[in-house]
């Protein structure tokens, strides 16, 4: 029966089922990834963010939650301009971090 509305699929993530191997590899290569406090300064400074949905904060969160495809598709919009590095209050070398993410999670590997 069509009521004109339906049950939305649950957005619950079971972290016990997420394979964190790649994120641990990223952490070995880029220990700074754990320094991120998700303040969003990188996202607000990102010149691509407004037009493409690119957000480094979301990328890191997505990787931690095992949503690798979402993260990699967002990173395709990065122009490597480095503005996020300039504004990061934790001093994370974000451009280097992005390149490392691409190396580990490259599209062919996801």
């Amino acid at each position: 029966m069509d009521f004109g509305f339906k049950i939305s699929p649950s957005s619950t993530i079971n972290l016990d089922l997420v394979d964190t191997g790649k994120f641990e590899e990223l952490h070995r290569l880029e220990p700074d990834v754990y320094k991120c406090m998700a303040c969003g300064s990188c996202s607000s400074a990102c010149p691509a963010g407004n037009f493409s949905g690119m957000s480094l904060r979301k990328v890191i969160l997505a990787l931690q939650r095992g949503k690798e495809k979402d993260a990699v598709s967002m990173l395709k919009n990065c122009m490597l301009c480095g503005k996020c590095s300039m504004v990061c209050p934790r001093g994370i070398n974000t451009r280097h971090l992005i390149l490392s993410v691409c190396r580990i999670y490259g599209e062919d590997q996801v």
Partner: protein
Amino acid sequence: MIYQGKQKIWADYQKEIPDNHWFYVRSCIRQNFFPGAEKMFLEICRNLLGRDFFETEYHTTCGGIAYHCDTIPQETVMTIVARQFALMTEAGYENYVASCITSFGNYTEIIETWREFPELETKIRELLWKACRREFKIPKYLAHASDLIYKYRNEIAARAKYRLINRHTGEPLKAVEHIGCHYAKMFPSRGVGGAEYPYVLAGMIEAWGGNVIDYPERRHCCGYGFRQYHVKANRGYSLSNTHKKFESMEPYHPDFILTNCPGCPYFMDRWQYVIAETEGKTYGENGYGIPVLTYEELASLVLGYDPWDIGLQLHQVAVEPLLDKIGIEYDPKAKYLGLDEKDLMKPELPGVLRCC
């Protein structure tokens, strides 16, 4: 339910509830959803327990629905509430009890706002005087009607004809208690037991012989949420919330759900039909749903009132399996007979959800 830790929380969150002399205000929507509930509250408190409960036909909505739907500003709601308080003052009462959870939250929020900003209270007094030449005193004690039944729970237990025991197994019935969000989530200290594990309904279930189930989404909203339901485009969100709760409680096989809010029993009851029609899934035994009761209805059942006199035929989910478990006698043929045996007509049966 694991009691460790909760008793400490319950000890910290206790409120003073006077025993007698209350000014009672009804809910806007409960009388349409489950009309027996408020009638039975007054019947139990006034006639059975002999307490003084006054109500007036001049009281209106508290404005809570419009306020929480963001259609009127808080000053308007405050003036409506000030008029209700004026009616209480004129009737000579100091204790104010609301039937509705949102009204209770609304009154609590307004009294707290006036305490923080006395100039606002002065402004509202002026507005009320200009609007209808009335003056008011702030209630000395504010309670929700479930607080009162909680207070009288042992008196009710002493007079109970039935206990919440499964007569087939001899085990206590497994109950899910669901507290309306506006009861204690806004002001935890104003609810019995606080916000995380309110004791108000758990106390009733225990006093009447049942067992309370602690399940992961126990404190999750029922999904009503005013704007989620009233805007049709958001109704899927409302339904999804309810679905999430039922999925979470399903493994514990509850015998019934007890609620103290106008919206919660309605949506947890009716959405079971919608979930059954859209997903083909039911949560009770043998294709039935899980009966959802208000605390007045449950109190009336244990006290031995006729299930059809307290309006249980207006529930979407059939209550008969629960009545059979408790051992309550009822006449199946009288389910849809009204006053003077007037035929209320039998509703059409749903396709998936089994009803009697």
